[in-house]
């Protein structure tokens, strides 16, 4: 029993830090997303659910980042190397959420061309120079962003409600826990913000059965970008595949929206959804916990 207690202590942040994270990251992000999404739906109705959910995610990110200072808002010296690429994350998040906001109204080839372009832009900004000797890392990163965006979006449109954002929220919080074990609190906060915001959006969606897919665009870019940059710029014993597994759920759950899985009966379909959503997350967390501890450093 004492072994379990000691292990729990090694992998749980100290209580004051948990309270502080609750007050300045998790609580504000979830509350801002919930309030903004609910008010928008009350004001404009369910037809405005997609832009409303996008706006809710954007506000949640803004409020939590303002309180926590996880990321600086703008790069210091834009276009002057070697500014760390994560300084571009807030601007890129804004760009993606803008695209998410208009996803409901735009249709056709213009929508897809734009999405491919912004996913490619994210790859160009966030894939480290050392990995660009070949084209495939850029293409792979852009594909992860694009699939992690359109897959959950398609699933949420087929099945409006809170399940998809709730699953994504849990997977982002799991990714945040992996990053905390890699000794980067600010990157862990960056992943916790969309995680908590998704939970807030999910609560509203459960009640209203509204389509929350506008919220998915920014996190589809932010989560793989933070995990890639975290793997590259932190110093830990966590193997690369833990970061990779933590980034997989948004990509994998899209499979549930397409045939033949989409034809499965309700229960089996959602069992598969939760397995694809939480399976890689749990695996990533187990690998991180076995490799590192969360001993208080300061």
């Amino acid at each position: 029993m004492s072994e379990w207690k000691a292990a729990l202590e090694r992998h749980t942040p100290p209580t004051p830090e948990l309270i502080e994270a609750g007050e300045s990251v998790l609580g504000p992000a979830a509350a801002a997303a919930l309030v903004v999404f609910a008010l928008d739906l009350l004001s404009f109705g369910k037809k405005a659910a997609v832009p409303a959910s996008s706006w809710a995610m954007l506000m949640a990110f803004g409020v939590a980042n303002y309180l926590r200072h996880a990321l600086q808002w703008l790069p210091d010296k834009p276009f002057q190397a070697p500014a760390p690429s994560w300084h571009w994350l807030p601007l890129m998040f804004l760009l993606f959420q803008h695209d998410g906001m208009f996803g409901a109204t735009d249709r056709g080839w213009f929508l897809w061309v734009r999405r491919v372009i912004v996913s490619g832009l994210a790859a160009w900004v966030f894939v480290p120079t050392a990995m660009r000797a070949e084209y495939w890392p850029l293409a792979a990163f852009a594909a992860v962003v694009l699939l992690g965006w359109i897959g959950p979006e398609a699933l949420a449109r087929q099945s409006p409600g809170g399940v998809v954002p709730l699953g994504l929220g849990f997977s982002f919080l799991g990714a945040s826990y992996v990053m905390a074990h890699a000794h980067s609190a600010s990157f862990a906060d960056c992943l916790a913000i969309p995680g908590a915001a998704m939970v807030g959006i999910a609560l509203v969606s459960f009640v209203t059965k509204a389509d929350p897919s506008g919220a998915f665009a920014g996190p589809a870019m932010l989560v793989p970008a933070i995990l890639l940059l975290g793997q590259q710029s932190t110093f830990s014993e966590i193997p690369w595949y833990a970061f990779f597994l933590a980034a997989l759920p948004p990509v994998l759950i899209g499979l549930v929206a397409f045939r033949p899985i989409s034809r499965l009966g309700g229960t089996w379909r959602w069992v598969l959804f939760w397995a694809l959503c939480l399976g890689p997350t749990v695996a990533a967390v187990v690998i991180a916990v076995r490799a590192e501890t969360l001993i208080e450093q300061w």
Partner: protein
Amino acid sequence: MRTLFAAAAALVLALPALAADKVTLNGDNTKITFVGTKPGGKHDGGFKTLTGTATVEGDALQALEVEIDTESLYADDPKLTAHLKSPDFFSVKANPKAKFTSKKIEKTDGGHKVTGDLTINGKTKEVSFPVTVSRAGGVKIETSFTIDKRDFGMTYGGGKINDEVAIKAVVEAK
């Protein structure tokens, strides 16, 4: 003849510079350490690898340049070392060098006041600090001062970790 005069004048003008000692700084003769504090505690750390030069004439410091390899950072706890190297603090993968270049050195009662550009974490800020120089058995240069870590983009831990960080540097060259 004109050329000869010009060469002689140049030699005369260059004599003070020739008289100055240029001390090469490295991790063996230069120790740069820091102390970070929090309510009720502190941690020590430093950098093992650096290069630079200190130009000294008599006991007067004339110029100071230091370039630190930030990946050589160490602290009194291995987990803390990893955390300090992360993007929360020094971002050593993105910013592998920290630099100081003096711009102005003034003589004071107790030694010198050095003013220059300090670049840490990719951010440059002008800082001033007191320096003492002694020439007993070689060259010894000492300084201690504080910086605000927020000036260098290190905003993590506000309220939990104090923003002021004490820096100490000692050069002992033969």
